[in-house]
């Protein structure tokens, strides 16, 4: 009897211990996921659900007010892809993206390099370059529209003042893209410059001292020390400006009153096209189809970016190791 009871108690406590072991093992294994879950729950509601819902909308006839219509399969995608405006918008998006991102990153690097010098009133200059970022894009567009007026704009007044033909900012494709890219650059260059500056300050000063002792000038140290060490940050900035650049909306929207990207859609970006389809024509089905196509394009570019990044980051590491060896 007693032995039987003891065995019983033992078995119970063993079970108890086993359970608490199991719990603590679960705790170790699952708690971290629990702690990061709020982000993913919010993402599921704010990101994933709209994403999937947009896919659902894109395979239906769907009016902004009237709501869901018939299931049409991929018809919305086919219609959109066979319309010239989609490809035109794609061209404009890439053109404006390249015209803004490339000069932006080069100029931001230059500004950061200058700010990295031992300037008087450091904080003043640093805050100064960030100032345009604080201004709302719509306000930026309003100011720049006074510069880029076809007839009474400041730039054209100056050009006509010296007897040249005015630039048709709102008529010709490339000038309109340049004007919009200027607004984007005005806003983002300083912001990127500060990111570069932060990275530059993290570069150990000994490298520069060593290089200068070896007789390297400023340009040489910038090219051979700063740039290679900045590579991961440059990649980060390129990635964020790619995502931002493919979604340019405000500046193009505000470039004229109608907001559709010009009479011949000279500067209609993909996001503007989505807006025109969804709110102008109230065709949510087609707007969602374009939204999904844009999503796929961004994913494609992100993958390409990732592959290139991995290669560049790899070579940067190797070069750095070689260089570090050389220095020591």
């Amino acid at each position, binding site marked *: 009897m007693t032995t039987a009871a003891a065995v019983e108690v033992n078995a119970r406590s063993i079970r108890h211990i086993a359970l608490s072991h199991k719990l603590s093992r679960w705790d170790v294994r699952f708690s971290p996921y629990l702690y990061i879950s709020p982000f993913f729950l919010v993402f599921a509601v*704010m990101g994933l*659900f*709209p994403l999937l*819902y*947009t896919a659902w*909308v894109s395979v239906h006839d769907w009016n*902004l*007010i*009237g*709501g869901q219509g018939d299931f049409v399969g991929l018809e919305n995608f086919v*219609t959109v892809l066979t*319309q*010239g*405006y989609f490809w035109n918008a794609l061209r404009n998006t890439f053109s404006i993206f390249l015209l803004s991102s490339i000069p932006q990153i080069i100029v931001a690097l230059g500004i950061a390099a200058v700010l990295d010098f031992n300037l008087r009133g450091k904080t003043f200059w640093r805050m100064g370059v960030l100032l345009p970022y604080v201004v*709302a*894009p*719509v306000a930026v*567009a*309003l100011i720049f*529209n*006074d510069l880029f*007026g*076809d*007839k*009474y*704009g400041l730039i054209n007044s100056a050009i006509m003042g010296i007897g040249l033909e005015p630039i*048709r900012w*709102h*008529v010709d494709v490339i000038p309109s893209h340049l004007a919009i890219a200027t607004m984007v650059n005005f806003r983002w260059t300083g912001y990127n410059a500060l990111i570069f500056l932060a990275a530059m300050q993290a570069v150990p000063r000994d490298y520069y001292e060593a290089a200068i002792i070896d007789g390297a000038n400023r340009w040489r140290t910038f090219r051979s020390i700063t740039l290679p060490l900045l590579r991961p940050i440059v990649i980060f900035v390129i990635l964020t400006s790619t995502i931002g650049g493919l*979604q340019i*909306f*405000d500046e193009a*929207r*505000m470039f*004229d*009153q*109608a*907001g*559709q990207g010009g*009479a*011949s859609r000279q500067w209609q970006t993909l*996001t503007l096209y*989505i*807006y025109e389809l*969804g*709110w*102008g*024509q*109230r065709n*949510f089905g087609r*707007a*969602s189809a374009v*939204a999904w196509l844009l999503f796929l394009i961004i994913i494609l570019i992100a993958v390409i970016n990732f592959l290139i990044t991995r290669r560049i980051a790899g070579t940067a590491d190797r070069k750095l190791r070689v260089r570090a060896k050389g220095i020591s």
Partner: protein
Amino acid sequence: VTVKRFPRTTLAVTVAGAASFALVLSGCSADTGTGQSTDENVKLTVATFNEFGYDDLFAEYEEANPNVTITHKKAATTNEARDNLTTRLAAGSGLSDVEAIEVDWLPELLQYSDQFIDLNSDDVDGRWLDWKTEAATDADGRLIAYGTDIGPEAVCYRSDLFAAAGLPTDRAEVAALLGTSWESYYAAGEKFAAAGTNVPWFDSAGATWQGVVNQIPNAYEEDDGTVIATENPEVKEAYTSVLAASSTLSARLGQWSDDWTASFQNNGFATQLCPGWMLGVISGNASGVAGWDIADTFPGGGGNWGGSYLTVPEQSKNQVEAQKLASWLTAPEQQLKAFASKGTFPSQLEALESDELLGATNEFFNNAPTGEILANRAAAVDVTPFKGEFYFAINDAMQQALTRVEDGTMTPDESWAQWVTDVESLG
């Protein structure tokens, strides 16, 4: 009340965000309440845009009806009001008890006329100009909106530039010179140009188109909604004639563009098609410029551009009280007060005949009797153009077609072909 597409405001909506927001909201549904008229306390919300001139009227109504409290939501532009209305209509909740709408987007809403209550009642029978009521009546004869103001069009002109070109400057003589047809209006322009003033006759082909197309009963769509835009000979003819005139007479300044606004200070053009609400726009843009006047005539007969309405959405929980308020606000006496306060030109027959309106003058326009002139212009409107589901989009594409020719990116034929493609892709 009808300054369309006017100021740039916070249109910087991020598309994805707005889209997902609207989509999430569309999952919710609202319970529709049928309010009953009682003496209980009622809270009414009224949504308007720009200036309806209602602020004092709300106080007056609250005084006369102590059980009613009115909250006024005012959007800065009609675009904002339209976005708000559409989004909440799609969501099924959140609209005000009385929602103001603009004639430009009325046809889009008429398709969903079951979302608004039928406002027909004996009290308001015959209150408005026929065409004002017709435009807000759906196929089943339900009246979904009470008219507030209208935009009867006259022609505004610069008497100083006319004088420089050796043309008459007196209002009546100018009206005779401009005549009553588009041909005579263009001919006067040629005469003006021949005098060598180097000032264009009108602002843009697009603005002129607005006047012409509003005189075609079925420009783009048959009454049953069939799209006929691209085959309609009237449209093609109008397109050709407007562009022919534009080639020699136009300043090629797209309306509402920055250049257009700036041109008022730079002798940009000599005449402009002028709905009542445009007077305020001109006097604002041309402030400090002397010489603007207004002639009591309009090419091709009468014409109306813009104007607003009040609706009561089906979503409203106080439909009866809301209808009472909307009816009171759009009564002739109240609309006259709104006219006195903000210059919104009434659409009510009784108001149109009142001495208060007819005696009104405008100092900026050389003290012209604008009340009387616009009343005459309103009486001259004899065509109610049919505007269906696609009117807004097709007309918008046409505006761009005209712009493409004016800015030289396409020939008239190329641009027409592009317009046909655009219209076909709408379906």
